[in-house]
């Protein structure tokens, strides 16, 4: 086959996703309302930060613009991952309903099918809101070519880290089918944490967010570089450029867990 497999899988992914978009368009009003609602709800997050800054001059030494950069980049990475992986967190439901069985009889890798399944642009709401906050915060950054590079790699790597976390933790459901909440504690929990400057947390937490659930690489380390700040927690400076490594490692770990999950899959009774 002339085409590399990754390209082929991506194309299949888009073909499946496209069908889901068209299916959602059968109910345009509901589609639009959900997208707007999604944007408003996530927007409230940032309004919360704004209100907090109305009473404070800075948060652990970070100004509103700087926190907005942290918030915007993490949200954007989360929105990218969330849009791309769609419904992997509902894999427990797929197992219960037998939908996973059907997917396993199709000649397309399971992960591609699961991620593309029920693809929805509803999450465009979150994406738009995050992009606006990030764009606004960017106007306060003193840009250099390296910083542009770091910013771009930050968003892509951040997407990979979240993608990996979502996939990896969803796999718990291969063993116990009702673990969505457990998985959410790490994925959405990790995402919430990254909306704040990490130096508000004890050092142990920062170490955990660096080496265990590597969400610190989603925005914290690269943003320190973008803002030209020294790390208040005193972590190595190299970490500020290590986001792609964290992204690839998280993704690789997630794929391993996924494969072992599929092998342990026990299907439903009938």
């Amino acid at each position: 086959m002339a085409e590399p497999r990754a390209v082929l899988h991506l194309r299949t992914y888009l073909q499946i996703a496209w069908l889901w978009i068209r299916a959602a368009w059968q109910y345009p009003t509901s589609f639009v309302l959900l997208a707007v609602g999604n944007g408003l709800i996530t927007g409230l997050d940032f309004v919360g930060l704004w209100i907090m800054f109305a009473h404070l001059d800075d948060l652990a030494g970070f100004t509103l613009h700087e926190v907005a950069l942290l918030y915007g980049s993490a949200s954007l990475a989360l929105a990218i991952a969330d849009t791309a992986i769609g419904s992997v967190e509902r894999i427990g439901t797929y197992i219960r309903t037998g939908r996973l069985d059907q997917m396993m009889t199709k000649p397309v890798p399971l992960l591609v099918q699961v991620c593309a399944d029920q693809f929805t642009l509803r999450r465009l709401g979150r994406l738009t809101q995050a992009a606006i906050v990030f764009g606004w915060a960017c106007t306060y950054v003193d840009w250099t070519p390296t910083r542009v590079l770091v910013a771009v790699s930050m968003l892509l790597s951040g997407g990979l880290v979240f993608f990996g976390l979502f996939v990896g933790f969803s796999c718990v459901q291969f063993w116990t089918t009702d673990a969505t909440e457990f998985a959410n504690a790490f994925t959405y929990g990790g995402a919430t944490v990254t909306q704040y400057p990490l130096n508000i947390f004890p050092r142990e937490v920062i170490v955990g967010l660096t080496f265990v659930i590597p969400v610190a690489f989603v925005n914290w380390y690269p943003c320190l570089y973008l803002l030209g700040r020294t790390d208040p927690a005193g972590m190595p400076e190299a970490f500020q450029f290590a986001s792609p490594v964290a992204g690839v490692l998280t993704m690789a770990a997630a794929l391993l867990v996924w494969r072992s999950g599929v092998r342990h899959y026990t299907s439903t009774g009938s």
Partner: protein
Amino acid sequence: MSATGPLIDVRDLERTFAVRRRVDGRRRRVRDSVLAVHDLTFAVAAGEMVGYIGPNGAGKSTTIKMLTGILVPTGGQVRVAGLDPNRDRVELARRIGVVFGQRSTLWWDLPLRDSFELLQKMYRISRARYRDNLDRFVDLLDLGDQLDTPVRQLSLGQRMRGDITAALLHDPEVLYLDEPTIGLDVVSKGRLREFLRALNDERGTTLVLTTHDLQDIEALCDRVIVIDHGTSVYDGPLAGLHAQGGSSRTLVVDLVDEAPPVVVPGATVRRVEGPRQWLSFPADASAAPIVAAVAASYDVADLSIQEPDIEDVIRELYSRGPEPLDRR
């Protein structure tokens, strides 16, 4: 893969499931394992039509899932089309078709055609072959008017035909059908069976059918495999199943007047209710001499014959234990 080897080759297949069981009076749960399938051996040649039957929980679905690569066996061997279903699941998927009776693979809100076109891309079916197959199946299954109707508006029978078309567009060598006629009316059932028989005749597609409907088996399968408690208890022709199961048919006789139980050779009266009597006779015996004998000696208002219930036949088999009776 050798050209002469069986298409499906199952040897000493075993699958256990770990379960947690609550022991009476204790709060702790104990880990335990359940043998869903064990010591299962059979082979299916290309072009065969096999009925795979057994009561709920006997291990039918578990077997099908191991054949399609969904479940990893815990013991034994499976080969389908020369492939290891688990290791080569994605590759095997191109060569098999699977229809789960109660779960549709079609896009609920979109016309049938859209689902078919996505499958064409997923299976990378050439444009020409796709058109050929679609035209043919649509014609045979009478789906022409439904192609552009959203799936949610189709009847159960139409949707089932849609699902079967979806499973066949890529010319699979084997088609696994799980309860394909469940919930369909008599006309739809008949049409579906006709189609499956034609598919097997013309393309040599191997069929493996799990069903509770004896008529599906009678119309389609030259061979049945009965599974109970996870292992095969019978493998052979349907007629043999009746003989092995010691099953009987029932002749229902409506006499003109009430009478004492009729006496005819080869049949025994099971029940009398006013002028109606139920006579049972071996399933493999001809009904003709019994009918003639009854009609010769009594005033008969009406007669009808009830076929043995597959469930009864199989229940009879189970009570003999899981010893293979007739293995090929």
